[in-house]
């Protein structure tokens, strides 16, 4: 078994419950990280699945000593298009992945990535850090901090829309594509389609269960699907709406799963998919992004002509906290794990907007013209 990795792998990811003080020193962050881990571990110890999580969290705490420092790293944005350009050939400096240091305002092009970027991923196994870009040309990987990249997929998978990593076996990677879910068990050398049980093949996102690495959720076009065996077989969870655009499982409440749909807003389950209900208040339109704060107390959602909505009760009811007429759609949302008042949203064609007061006020934060599909903090 490989060492336990640190992973940020999907577009609407939760932060894993790790809390930092704003502007904390590296030492303070490390200490805070360890305390948080121990606290959560103790709290969950009584549950039947707690051993697994406890192992993971302890492992994280004591093997990845640099992690806390890394978590204060740069903010990355995956840009699919840019309204200021109409280049369809991909050789466009205004698309790709951009990064900025926290507190900074200038975005810089991540090396050699001027390509159609749908999503980002990061995996750390021991001392090895790997960046991933889910892109139009396939799944890109860099093992040297972004200096050089390799496309891992071939023509069979076409565009890659999102990526997920097995938290234990570093060689197991899942990708969601318009042509279905694919899995590699050899570190991206070979890929096999894994769609048994699915009625349609278009898949926006695949995520791994917070507690069971063999359990996956896939946002397939006709429904949310779950696999209990590492993607070999899938079962529709009958989320009550087709067109699943995004899926989020709360780290703090693993029974709670939310999906954003094409025409029915947010759907939520509190019993791992047995029963579903619609989020109250939020409009029945396309929801492309859902993101929870690290403590799970606040969940944010956005989509087509929605502005930003917040739920303080695990997704049952929603209130709009911000809207701007110039923004047609929100593609991505991000809540700073170190500061729950620090929010970023990625738009379709208006770049990134940022709030540092929990969504009360917002300002344009760069990448104007960009269609931002994912925002993440990565080392």
């Amino acid at each position: 078994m490989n060492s336990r990795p640190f992973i940020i792998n999907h577009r609407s990811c939760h932060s894993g419950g790790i809390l930092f003080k704003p502007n904390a020193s590296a030492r303070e962050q490390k200490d805070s990280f360890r305390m948080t881990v121990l606290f959560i571990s103790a709290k969950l110890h009584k549950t039947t699945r707690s051993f697994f999580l406890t192992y993971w969290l302890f492992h994280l705490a004591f093997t990845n000593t640099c992690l806390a420092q890394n978590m204060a790293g740069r903010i990355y944005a995956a840009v699919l298009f840019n309204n200021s350009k109409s280049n369809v050939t991909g050789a466009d400096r205004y698309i790709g992945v951009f990064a900025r240091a926290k507190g900074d305002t200038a975005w810089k092009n991540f090396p050699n990535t001027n390509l159609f970027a749908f999503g980002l991923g990061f995996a750390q196994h021991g001392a090895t850090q790997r960046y991933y870009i889910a892109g139009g040309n396939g799944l890109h990987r860099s093992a040297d901090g972004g200096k050089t990249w390799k496309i891992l997929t071939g023509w069979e998978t076409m565009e890659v829309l999102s990526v997920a990593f097995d938290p234990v076996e570093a060689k197991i990677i899942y990708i969601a594509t318009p042509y279905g879910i694919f899995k590699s068990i050899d570190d991206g050398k070979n890929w096999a389609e894994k769609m048994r049980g699915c009625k349609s093949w278009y898949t926006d996102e695949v995520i791994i269960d917070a507690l069971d690495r063999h359990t996956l959720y896939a946002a397939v076009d006709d429904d949310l699907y779950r696999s209990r065996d590492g993607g070999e077989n899938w079962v529709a969870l009958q989320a009550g709406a087709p067109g699943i655009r995004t899926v989020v499982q709360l780290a703090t409440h693993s029974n709670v799963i939310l999906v954003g749909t094409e025409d029915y807003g947010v759907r939520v389950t509190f019993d791992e998919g047995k029963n579903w209900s619609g989020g109250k208040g939020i409009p029945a339109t396309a929801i492309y992004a859902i993101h929870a704060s690290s403590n799970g107390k606040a969940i944010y959602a956005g989509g087509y002509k929605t502005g930003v909505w917040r739920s303080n009760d695990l997704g049952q009811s929603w209130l709009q906290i911000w809207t701007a007429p110039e923004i047609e759609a929100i593609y991505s949302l991000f809540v700073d794990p170190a500061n729950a008042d620090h929010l970023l949203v990625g738009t379709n064609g208006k770049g990134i907007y940022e709030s540092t007061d929990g969504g009360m006020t917002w300002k344009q934060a760069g990448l104007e013209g960009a269609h931002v599909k994912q925002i993440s903090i990565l080392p």
Partner: protein
Amino acid sequence: MPAKFFNHKEHKAHKEKTLCSLWPLWCSFDCSPSRVTHYWETYPRKKPAGNPAFQFTVLAILLVAGASQSQFSFDARKDRLLNAAGQEVRKDFFAIIAKLQTQTNVPQALAMLDSLARDEGIGGMFYAYGLIGTYLRARSLLPDSLHVKIRRAFRTRVMYRGDTENHWVMYYTGLYLAAQTWPNEDGAQWFNGKSSQENFAEAKSWLDHWIKLTTTKGQGEFDSPTYFITFVTPMLTLYEFARDPVMRKEAEMMLDYLFADFAVEHLRGNYGGGHSRDYPQDIINPLVAASTMWAWLYFGEPEFEPWSGARGPMRHRGWEAVNGAVSSYRLPEIIRQIATDRSAPYVHTETKRVRNVIRFGEQKNPPVYKYTYMTNDYVLGSLHGGVLQPIQQHTWDVTFVSDQPNNTLFTLHPYYSGKELAMFFPEEQKVLSDEVNRFHLVYTNPDKWNASSPYEQTFQHKNVLMVLYNINENAQHAHLDGFFPKSLDERFEDASKWIFCKAGKTYIAFYPLQPYEWIEEEVNWRWRSRDLKNGVVVEIGAETTHGSFAEFKNRLRQTKVAHDNFDETLTVQYTTSAGELMQFTYDGQRLLNGKPVDFKSYKLFNGPFLQSEVGSGVLKIIYKNQTRILDFNKISIKGEK
């Protein structure tokens, strides 16, 4: 104004190659070192000045000169093309090849190539195959610095693979040849981090996949007057430079295949019939389409040089056909004969496939059924209907031989929707229409001339076509439009409810099922009908089959289009002027003389010139007593050259 494509020396040399003894006369008054214009380049719109007798003489000369053009040999045409492309001042890989091939403006060509190799702002699939093709063609002429820059481009430049069939053909052709050119290099030397061996294997795998798919299920981006060039140009590049004799053979066979596919729907330079995709300018004015350049080069038609502007400026001013001019590939004579022999009318049907469906469908590549009726004067062709391609579908038209531009007539429902686009593209459904509008500027325009519609279905039998519409009331742009060019000789509404049109020797009878209005536009009359349950019946005639236009009209007046209670039955019945009974129900049966038409029995190609079974991978090309068989299973060619 005509473009200046020839210098005085080239012009003189050109005249010497022609058989027309009258060249000196007409050249004498417009041939100067500063401005050289071939009269037939502007024919027939340019009117010579002077007295009537002089005008008659010049006209006679023009006619002979025009006729002489078709007598040019392939070699003469390719020389003219290279000379013209050699004068290009825009940066263009194929113009560079022409300049180097003809040794004209070589420093300019090298400067262009240097700029293209250095400019980090360009890239992608068009760039990938263009750059490597130019490099392989011109390698021995290039300075060391350019060798380095071009190699570097494949290391540092993003070569985006794209998301369409033509993108992938270009990308993987480029990758195949680049990996072949620089073998045994590790991933650090390549833009995608893969080694030469990995890139070569992936490219070969995809090209093999595409060839098999195309020859067993049909092309997805089929019969496109614009995108045709993005398939033949890479195949010519592959044929020329692939070292593997098997791949080279496959490329040769695909060239035969693509040109044969074009040839059976070709009429005097026009790409007839339904098209998977094309641009509005090319749809309403077929002879300015990019495919015309290839028809001229390989088939010898039309008679004017496509870049001359004789039918209006070409929308796509690329010189890809230069790749044909410099290639060692030669079109088999049997295919050229098929493309140009219109001595007998024929029916030709095809099965193609829908472009990759990623959602809202049960099959990834459902079949497309295509019907074409070809005559010496016109070609009437149709796709069976529905959304078969996003954005640029052209479902049906009649294209007629004419010395005027805009030689076509058709109808469409100018539908658009995010859902249609989301069938084929992975971006967000609700914003896709706006996204696509950024690249294809007319997508949401209610007056556009290209569209697929889920509310449109056709039924064609020879020279008669029924097109029915059942438009959802919530659909975008709930009206029908018809393109009637002003260049028609006649257009009038008859008391019998037929709209009769005459275009040269072609006669068109157009029967609308519902009320309509006319909107005058620059080059056409727009026929517009606003009923949601709607349709037209079209019968085409010609002087050779129907006699005079008056006779044609009289025959049509005696026919009956039965569509009583159409709003409820969506059924129309028509007995053609030839006495055949056609009955068509929207979403229902197509009955010909009482027997249902079964699309599932359609072959991949079925006509007097081409035969191929779906799934077979074998295409039989037939002309009179000659045959040429392309067997993609055995990668072999048998029969006539």
